[in-house]
């Protein structure tokens, strides 16, 4: 290499360094006196703003005889308030050029509006109204009770493999509330009463259990004033929140079961318990997931779909949660392939990842994939608002949106092997077969 070229290369590297810094997501965060955590990110590239509120309550805070309650309640949050008549919430948002939605997971419930940026005050008014004085009546409850049950039919009961998560969590947990999923069961959805909803609301839907995260075409100082205007007078909650502390004992013997579903092709699901999100091993498990199932050269994809042609589809998902969660490997058999065959092919891949240290080249590939994923995550205002809230609620550090990549980069090849050996042990797993109903004797 000539000297000149070397200099240019060095310049180029420097530029990349500077550029990478430019892509840093800057944000402001603070608490209101009532405990509401506020995160603000400014980005003028599109004249829109995402306003979101994350409440730290999900299905794991439910009582076992009221499963599905947190998600049902999420539907009621659109009913109205002292100043917003029933049915108006959606109309106000969409009629002012916005979009809105919400979702409930095991650990938290997330609400958002994406509005034209001149409607920031509107978004704040809407979210503060339902945080301060939500109004629900029996008509609303009964209507949403039916809507929620339709949602369950559409997404789970009437879908091939739709019950997968429900079955996986039911079989993997015996005492922890992760043993049921956010959608819950019809019988308890039927029982939930108006009074219980109001109790739930007063307990969990309080500023000291919420994070207001805003991203978009805003002016930080004006936004701060508006946030104070609409949220400062919402009283802090005082009721005791149910935060489960129960520790799920480890699985010591493999658990096996069969689910008969309205499907054509058998599927095999293997699940392993994994550590809570944010722990060191959690990053190793995430990288193992990438190794196993991201891209066509990933091990599951290459072995099961391409080479052995045992699977029509395969994937691995780390269900990392606030408390220890699950690593799920899923495969749908190609026509004519027996589930036993698919299982043994999955096992050969899992065995390899437990016994082989990956090559330097493959390790570099993994790091490159993680880096790309990390960069691409920050592509929309809504995505940024949600990630900032997530990092704050789960890890207590919103800046992980910029720095979490460092935690991945600390993971070594040896860490990967150790994590695979520790968590993907055959005697601690659950194996479910999904078979067509016609196969039921």
């Amino acid at each position, binding site marked *: 290499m000539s000297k000149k070229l070397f200099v240019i290369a060095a310049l180029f590297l420097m530029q990349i360094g500077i550029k990478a810094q430019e892509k840093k997501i800057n944000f402001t965060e603070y608490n209101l006196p009532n405990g509401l955590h506020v995160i603000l990110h400014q980005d003028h590239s599109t004249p829109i703003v995402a306003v979101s509120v994350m409440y730290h309550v999900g299905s794991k805070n439910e009582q076992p005889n009221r499963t599905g309650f947190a998600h049902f309640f999420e539907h009621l949050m659109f009913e109205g308030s002292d100043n917003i008549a029933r049915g108006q919430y959606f109309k106000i948002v969409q009629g002012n050029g916005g979009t809105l939605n919400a979702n409930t997971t095991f650990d938290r419930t997330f609400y958002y509006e994406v509005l034209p940026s001149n409607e920031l*005050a509107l978004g704040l008014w809407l979210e503060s109204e339902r945080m301060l004085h939500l109004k629900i009546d029996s008509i609303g409850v009964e209507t949403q009770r039916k809507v929620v049950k339709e949602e369950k039919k559409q997404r789970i009961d009437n879908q091939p493999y739709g019950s997968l998560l429900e079955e996986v969590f039911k079989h993997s947990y015996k005492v922890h509330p992760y043993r049921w999923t956010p959608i819950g069961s019809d019988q308890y959805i039927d029982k939930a009463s108006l009074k219980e909803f109001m109790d739930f609301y007063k307990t969990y839907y309080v500023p000291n259990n919420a994070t207001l995260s805003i991203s978009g075409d805003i002016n930080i100082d004006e936004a701060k004033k508006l946030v104070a205007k609409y949220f400062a007078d919402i009283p802090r909650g005082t009721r005791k929140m149910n935060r489960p502390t129960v520790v799920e004992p480890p699985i010591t013997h493999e658990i096996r079961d069969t689910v008969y579903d309205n499907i054509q092709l058998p599927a095999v699901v293997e699940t392993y318990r994994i550590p809570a999100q944010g722990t060191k091993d959690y990053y190793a498990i995430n990288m193992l997931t990438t190794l196993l199932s991201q891209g066509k050269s990933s091990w599951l994809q290459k072995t099961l779909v391409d080479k052995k042609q045992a699977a029509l589809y395969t994937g691995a998902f780390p269900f990392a949660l606030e408390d220890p969660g699950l690593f799920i490997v899923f495969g*749908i058999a190609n026509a004519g392939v027996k589930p036993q065959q698919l299982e043994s092919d999955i096992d050969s891949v899992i065995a390899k990842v437990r016994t082989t240290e990956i090559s330097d080249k493959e390790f570099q590939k993994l790091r490159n994939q993680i880096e790309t994923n990390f960069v691409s995550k920050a592509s929309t205002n809504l995505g940024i608002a949600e990630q900032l809230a997530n990092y704050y609620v789960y890890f207590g550090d919103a800046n992980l949106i910029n720095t979490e990549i460092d935690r991945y980069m600390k993971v070594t090849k040896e860490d990967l092997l150790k994590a695979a050996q520790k968590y993907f042990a055959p005697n601690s797993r659950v194996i479910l077969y999904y078979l067509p109903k016609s196969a039921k004797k």
Partner: protein
Amino acid sequence: MNIKKFLTLIILLTSATLFAQVDRSKMPEPGPAPEIKIADAETFTLDNGLKVFVVENHKLPEVSFSIMFNYPPVSEKEYAGLSNITGSLLGTATKTMTKDEIDENIDFIGATLSTSAKGVYGNALKKNIDVLAKIMGDIVANPKFEKTELDKIKKRTISSLKAGEKEPSTIADNVKNVLDFGKDSPYGEIETEKTVKNITIDKCVEFYDNYMRPNVSYLAIVGDINLDEAKNLADKYFANWKKGNVPAVKFKSKRPPLIRKVAMVDRPSAVQSVIHITYPVKLKPGDKLGFAAKVANAILGGAFVSRLNMDLREKHAYTYGAHSTLDDDIYMGEFDATCEARNAVTDSAVTQFLYEMKKMRSEKVTEDELNTVKKFMIGQFARSLENPSTIARFAINIERYNLPKDYYKNYLKNLDAVTVDDVYKASKKYIKPDKAYVLVVGNNSEVGKKLKKFSLSGKIDYYDTYGNKVDPDAEKLPADITVDQVIDNYLKAIGGKDKIANIKDETVAMEGNIQGMNIKITVVRKFPNKYYFNLDLGAMQQTQKFDGKNAVVSGMGQSKKLEGDQLEALKEESEMYPLLRYKELGIKPELIGLGKVNDKSAYKVKLTFPNGNSSVIYIDADTGLKLREASSRKTPQGEFATTVDFSDYKDWNGIKYPGKIVQTVGPQTIDMTVKEVKINSGVKDDFFKVD
């Protein structure tokens, strides 16, 4: 007073003033409307005709390459699925790279790459785009189609077709496309196991050569890149892609239904129905009523707060969500309103769909509603700009649909100009509740009957999961029964294999009635293949004989040797119990379904004879007895469908024989009663002798 307390006081006072400003009863007023800026895409064309659009956006250090093959819709007919499979095959190997190498190289740089019938998409960090562009260029310019990869893709495609047979939304989409566009339209063609199996490497190569050409394609390069960099990459990696003469195609499509029709696909275990109200629409991109049509659909069902969702979800709680789309298209557009609703309210949901559609035609929308929906659509437009590839999409749409150059720059202005009257006009033209298909994929026994009222002809058309019309009374086969089991059951039921194998000859005497005339029929068969048939009409007689080789028909003093199809027919008849030794005889049995014969469930077994003829026999699912034999035979008078029904089985020396035989040929029915059956009476060979 100490300073600290004083400060607290100030803070409290300030907060108090802030609180006092909030009048919560009033919705906040918006600030001044922000300007919605639409960036420009830069464009250039390569020598091979590839049009390239570049959108610079430096928000993230990544770049995407998106190639769109814009060939016209192609009829694939018996190769349905060819374009999809060619699209999947593209990218599995090139002349310089194996599949493993492509997969590894793409994953190594953390990029994503996907190929399909419609194009190739890739995304990578800025620092890796050279590698990505090189691979993408190689994929489109120098693909290598290998049989091993084709076979893998076909296997997966067939598996996923099987999986789709249980997916209500997949079923509904299949049938909807058949209804709206027709099975012989590129928009209504359905891939099946059979059409996928027909696809060969040669067909894929031909498809690629014909249609996946740069001169009918667009390349969008979007992200952290400037025009010069983009030009360099495009020149370097996409200029070798050879242009070609893309064949023109004639687009075929159905006309909209003249009256409202109800179509149903039965899913016996369904707990919820998928409902579509749908029909084809002639609406091209850029139509002068286009904006009014978009607004009309948004009011009806294009948003959460649209009439359909507010009615079906928020008012009646029939569904988790109801919405509608009105798609424009150069060739043929489509209207589709849809929801999923539980069985008990499926018909009520259809009623509300039709009610809301009718209302769009009978009443003008209010100014208020119009303004609300315009604001919603402006917001939607602004939000779409968050994704930089939207600008590239706009530029490509202007090209491919031949829209005015300033179509998107004027989008909001034109949207704002839509009036209540325009919406009314567009509704009258495009929303047609009385000339629509009501398609329901659901549980027929629970919802079917209640859907009849929506059909203007009073009947429901039933379809299978691939859009073929079916008989709703036909039942589904149990998965675990095989054709051999059905045949065994039949042989057992009529006396058992051993007894049947011992039959050397059999004489059956029947009496009956044809068009008021009394007739007598005698049939004699001798193992292995001798046959005698005598029809006695009193005044005249007819005899047919077959001695194993030759056949003759005689009557009224004349005699004629039979040849061709007639000889074949007698050969078939000569076999007493063909199912006993069907393998020897070269008969291919196939279990084709469950059917009904006079309310009895029966297995339908199709028998294909070595000469190519076939019959379908119906075996009673309970008793194993043969209930019917249906066949179609060519005669000098044309092709005749014959059905023979068997009932009143009686025992003759341990062999069961039907007491009643009813034969229907066309409009003619012959009722026969079996009077006597003689088994092993020692019939001599001479009896069958053909002179």
